[in-house]
């Protein structure tokens, strides 16, 4: 009866709550609050309704109200599912995961035998990573319900504790405990699931009990591992390897290769294990075994312990492969090259065993030269070819191409073969040293082949990239290289033109889009870059791995609000990830995928420590500070950011480089690819730039803190915070930006790279010093104001320099590359002026604390107690006037720049000409193609012009707002 009544109650409750949930889901929080009020009127002690009301307040931006309601509910210790779930949602949204633990812990105290509550409590501990409590809760669960998963949650919770204790403790106490727990279950015959065996293996491996692990795999428990194919084999082999039982591991891979000739990872392991046997087994070798190698099928059963034997075995595989006829695999061919490469590294004279490397490459190229994968297969082996023999290799490979060099292909296979030859030629370095003229004719030839390719490559599959797209890629790589090596920016425009043209015909080809994005960024066409970026449809994970391609460069072209929006999108991703990733940990326990738990934890940290995340959050806040045009707005903006200037708050040494620096495809010689050292250098440099920017932000926040009344318990350190930060800023020493290369993935500098070492910092520092000096004077009105007055002069001088440089750069950009730096300088100057405008508000309020109400004519409303400081006030007004002048001068020069960019100026005229069409075109259709390319160039130039004008408009808009901002301090 009672149970029945509860059921009726819960149905009624559910019906009453439904509308509140609906309003919450629809995002109508006011209605949700009203609805909750209605329900609570009828039933004032309805806890779940209270919590939903709190949640509605939270989502409506009233965290405090939400908090106090939740506190009151918490004190009543709810135990019903809907209330606790709703509270969990609210705490999650507030990122207060510890509170979720406490509400469930309280509930469990009330109902210690509830499986549901305990499960929720366990997952709550998982979210906060309290491994000990996890363990206790899991065991409590197992006690009331004898289910295996609960027991193994407990075991895994013990394993996780190794993360928090010293290594020796982990080995001597924690892991043995985990092992004993599992052994107990094994002895009782209770181990059921595959995941439980995997967890056991993991525990054994963590203790280096490899022999024991191997025994498990070979025993009855090993049979439980079924779903990971090949896992048992590879696992066994890996364990054997760890036991130094290389021979057994080696033999396993030979066996696996017999079953699958084309599985590349087996080859890799085969090589690895063989090399380990190299010197070891030789001595054990009996002459009998040596003898038996003569029969080929014996080769399967004998380990290969020297290059000669490997070569024999690979030959056996190659022979089997040849019998497959047209179904031949690629791996046996490449395996020989792999051996060649290894022997070369060890200086072991591979020619003696394997013959000429060019023959090996040719052996592969003849059957597979018409495959799209050919180049990427061969790429890593091409450096084996001595540079002096590169042309010889090309001649050899060309023999299998049954057309002469100038003949156009008749079918797709011929075309693919020609494309592979071209890529190999480039990778061998045969294109890089061509003369400028030869490079141009090469580009022309590639374009001729591209145009012709369209006629034979009627793509059957619209989802594939047309084969002949490759010609445009290589041509644009050459043009890109020329533009950097020879400083010929018209080559960039031409590259953009052919890429835009090809993209029209092959709209999915992201290689085109990535290159276009790079080119537009290089020449400061932010708006054009933006439209290309949109085509790439970059989202979620890619915001981190590919964000560097665009985010850092947008604000370089004055598109400040767009840049800020990009940062915001990335920030949303990062912060959502953090709470989501906690849920994924709970899934891993739920499904018993224990091996993934550490991986998930590391992944979460990797994302959380992404340097891009930090960059976006710092840049976003700085760009927020460019928006206010009154002191009140500035106060509000600073307040919103919740910066504690005394606290750096960023674990710099933990920052991770998540950039995908391989994303742009390249056929350049290996030596020209980005090296890990270069990647590291650019990363470290970026981190330093972010540090600098973060310091700027903290300085501004500290300057605003000068306005706050000194709190009673003010610790002395707070007073000299600003000077300390200023000196930190002044001594910052950034590593040099690594020299630019033609490498396509090389990150280009952004505007923030130019702040250090420029006039912007001295101007900023002087202005901050002034704020501090004024605050000193406020504390001690009788003090000497000479230092402050001197600072004002210095600020005036520095800012004049800043603006002069910007003006000069805007008036004298006679090339596209300079156009980018003109925009960068202008944007940086705008930023510095904006920071100074913010500080003007600080100055004014330091010299003249605002009276009761905010007043624009504060100057005349002095409080009686204040000392009049007419000299300071006068000088500050003068300073503001000077800043205003600088700002309007900059505004004017951006205007002049815009007018010049808008006209078809000399630069435009020069660029609009397709430099590649001067030579006579003999084949028909050539003229028409060139005409079309001419049009594409014109279209690209127009796109650039439009982009520059958009930047100019935005800058003008920003600067005129800034002028108004300054005006408020003049009158």
């Amino acid at each position, binding site marked *: 009866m009672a149970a029945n009544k509860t059921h009726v109650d819960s149905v009624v409750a559910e019906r009453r709550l439904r509308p509140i949930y609906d309003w919450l889901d629809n995002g109508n929080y006011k209605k949700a609050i009203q609805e909750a009020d209605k329900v609570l009127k009828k039933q004032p002690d309805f806890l779940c309704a209270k919590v939903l009301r709190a949640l509605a307040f939270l989502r409506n931006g009233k965290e405090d109200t939400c908090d106090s309601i939740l506190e009151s509910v918490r004190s009543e210790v709810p135990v019903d599912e809907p209330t606790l779930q709703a509270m969990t949602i609210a705490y999650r949204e507030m990122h207060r995961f510890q509170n979720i633990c406490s509400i469930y812990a309280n509930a469990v105290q009330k109902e210690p035998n509830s499986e549901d509550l305990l499960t929720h409590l366990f997952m709550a501990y998982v979210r906060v990573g309290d491994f000990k409590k996890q363990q206790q809760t899991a065991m409590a669960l197992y006690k009331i319900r004898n289910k295996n998963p609960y027991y193994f949650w407990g075991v895994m919770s013990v394993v996780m504790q190794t993360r928090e204790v010293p290594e020796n403790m982990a080995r001597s106490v924690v892991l043995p405990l985990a092992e004993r727990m599992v052994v107990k279950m094994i002895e009782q015959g209770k181990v059921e699931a595959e995941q439980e065996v995997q967890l056991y293996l993991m525990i054994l491996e963590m203790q280096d009990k490899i022999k024991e692990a191997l025994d498990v795999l070979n025993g009855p428990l090993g049979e439980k591992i079924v779903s990971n194919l090949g896992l048992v084999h590879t696992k066994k082999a890996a364990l054997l390897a760890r036991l130094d039982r290389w021979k057994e591991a080696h033999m396993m891979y030979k066996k696996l290769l017999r079953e699958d000739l084309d599985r590349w990872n087996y080859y890799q392991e085969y090589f690895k294990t063989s090399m380990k046997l190299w010197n070891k087994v030789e001595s054990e070798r009996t002459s009998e075994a040596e003898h038996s190698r003569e029969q080929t099928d014996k080769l399967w059963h004998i380990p290969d312990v020297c290059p000669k034997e490997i070569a024999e075995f690979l030959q056996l595989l190659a022979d089997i492969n040849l019998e497959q006829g047209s179904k031949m695999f690629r791996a046996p061919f490449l395996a020989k090259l792999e051996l060649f490469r290894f022997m070369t590294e060890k200086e072991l004279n591979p020619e003696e065993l394997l013959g000429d490397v060019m023959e090996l490459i040719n052996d592969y190229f003849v059957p597979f030269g018409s495959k799209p994968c050919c180049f990427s297969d061969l790429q890593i082996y091409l450096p084996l070819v001595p540079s002096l023999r590169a042309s010889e290799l090309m001649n050899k490979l060309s023999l299998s191409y049954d057309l002469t060099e100038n003949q156009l292909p008749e079918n797709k296979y011929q075309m693919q073969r020609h494309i592979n030859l071209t890529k190999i030629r480039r990778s061998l370095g045969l294109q890089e040293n061509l003369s400028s003229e030869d490079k141009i004719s090469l580009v022309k030839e590639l374009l001729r082949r591209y145009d012709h390719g369209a006629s034979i490559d009627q793509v059957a599959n619209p989802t594939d990239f047309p084969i002949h797209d490759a010609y445009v890629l290589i041509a644009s790589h050459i043009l890109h290289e020329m533009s950097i090596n020879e400083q010929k920016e018209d080559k960039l425009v031409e590259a953009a033109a052919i890429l835009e043209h090809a993209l029209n015909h092959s709209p999915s080809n992201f290689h085109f889009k990535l290159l276009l994005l790079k080119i537009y960024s290089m020449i400061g066409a932010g708006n054009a870059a933006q439209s290309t970026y949109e085509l790439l449809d970059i989202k979620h994970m890619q915001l981190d791995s590919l964000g560097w391609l665009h985010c850092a460069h947008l604000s370089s072209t004055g598109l400040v609000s767009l840049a800020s929006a990009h940062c915001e999108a990335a920030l949303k991703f990062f912060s959502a990830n953090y709470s989501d990733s906690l849920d994924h940990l709970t899934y891993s326990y739920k499904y018993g*995928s224990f091996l993934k738990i550490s991986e*998930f934890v590391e992944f979460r940290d990797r994302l959380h420590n992404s340097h891009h995340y930090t960059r976006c959050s710092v840049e976003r806040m700085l760009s927020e500070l460019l928006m206010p045009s009154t002191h009140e707005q500035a106060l509000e903006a600073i307040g919103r950011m919740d910066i504690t200037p005394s606290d750096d708050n960023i674990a710099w040494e933990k920052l991770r480089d998540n950039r995908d620096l391989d994303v742009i495809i390249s056929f350049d010689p290996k030596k020209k690819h980005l090296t890990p050292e270069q990647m590291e250098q650019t990363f470290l440099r970026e981190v330093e730039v972010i540090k600098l920017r973060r310091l700027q932000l903290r300085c501004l926040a500290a300057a605003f803190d000068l306005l706050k009344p000194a709190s009673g318990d003010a610790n002395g350190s707070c007073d000299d915070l600003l000077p300390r930060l200023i000196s930190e800023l002044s001594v910052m020493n950034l590593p040099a930006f690594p020299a630019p290369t033609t490498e396509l993935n090389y990150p280009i500098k952004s505007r923030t790279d130019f702040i250090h070492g420029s006039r912007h910092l001295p101007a900023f520092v002087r202005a901050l010093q002034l704020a501090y000096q004024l605050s000193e004077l406020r504390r001690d009105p009788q003090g000497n104001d000479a230092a402050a007055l001197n600072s004002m002069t210095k600020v005036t001088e520095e800012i004049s320099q800043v603006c002069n440089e910007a003006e000069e750069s805007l008036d004298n950009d006679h090339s596209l590359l300079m156009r980018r730096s003109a925009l960068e300088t202008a944007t940086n100057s705008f930023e510095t002026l904006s920071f100074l405008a913010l500080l003007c508000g600080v100055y004014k309020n330091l010299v003249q604390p605002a009276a009761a109400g905010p007043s624009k004519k504060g100057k005349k409303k002095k409080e009686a107690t204040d000392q009049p400081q007419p000299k300071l006030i006068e000088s500050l007004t003068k300073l503001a006037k000077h800043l205003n002048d600088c700002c309007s001068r900059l505004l004017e020069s951006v205007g002049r720049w815009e007018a010049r960019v808008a006209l078809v100026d000399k630069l435009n005229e020069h660029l609009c000409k397709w430099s590649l069409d001067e030579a006579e075109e003999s084949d028909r259709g050539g003229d028409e193609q060139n005409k079309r390319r001419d049009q594409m160039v014109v279209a690209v130039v127009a796109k650039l012009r439009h982009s520059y004008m958009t930047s100019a408009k935005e800058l003008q808009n920003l600067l005129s707002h800034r002028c108004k901002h300054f005006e408020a301090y003049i009158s």
Partner: protein
Amino acid sequence: MTALRPFTCNDLFKFNNVNLDPLTETYGLSFYLQYLAHWPEYFQVAESPSGEIMGYIMGKAEGSGEKWHGHVTALTVSPDYRRLGVANTLMAYLEEVSEKKNAYFVDLFVRVSNKVAIKMYTELGYIVYRTVLEYYSGDPDEDAYDMRKALSRDVNKISVVPLRHPVRPEDVD
């Protein structure tokens, strides 16, 4: 020629040469991590000798009784590595895992307009089991084929007797 290995979280940072293709959807993180947590053995990546990701497959096992089956959630191969049998290798792997799990069949959904994929699956032995109306939302919505292949446990091939009438997405179990 491929190297198959389990997909790991770090692959999410470097799968761009596959996912930048507009026909491969980049999902929110939760989607990938859920699969990694629940069916790690069904999430495999095919790697080239130079270590590049050529393609990957995501799948799961679900259903009860005779409906216990393997499901292909996503299969994608980089445009630069097509027509090399990478997809076949990945599919064969998923089928084998499903065999080991004693599943009755493997199924997948495909846009009715995706002729290339349908042809490939047909060549791998899949049949159109039924049409699911307006399964893919878009403008306009598009129907899906539910394609199936029986595994050895389904001795009488009951799971692959095609349905004569199309079904609505909400009726798909």
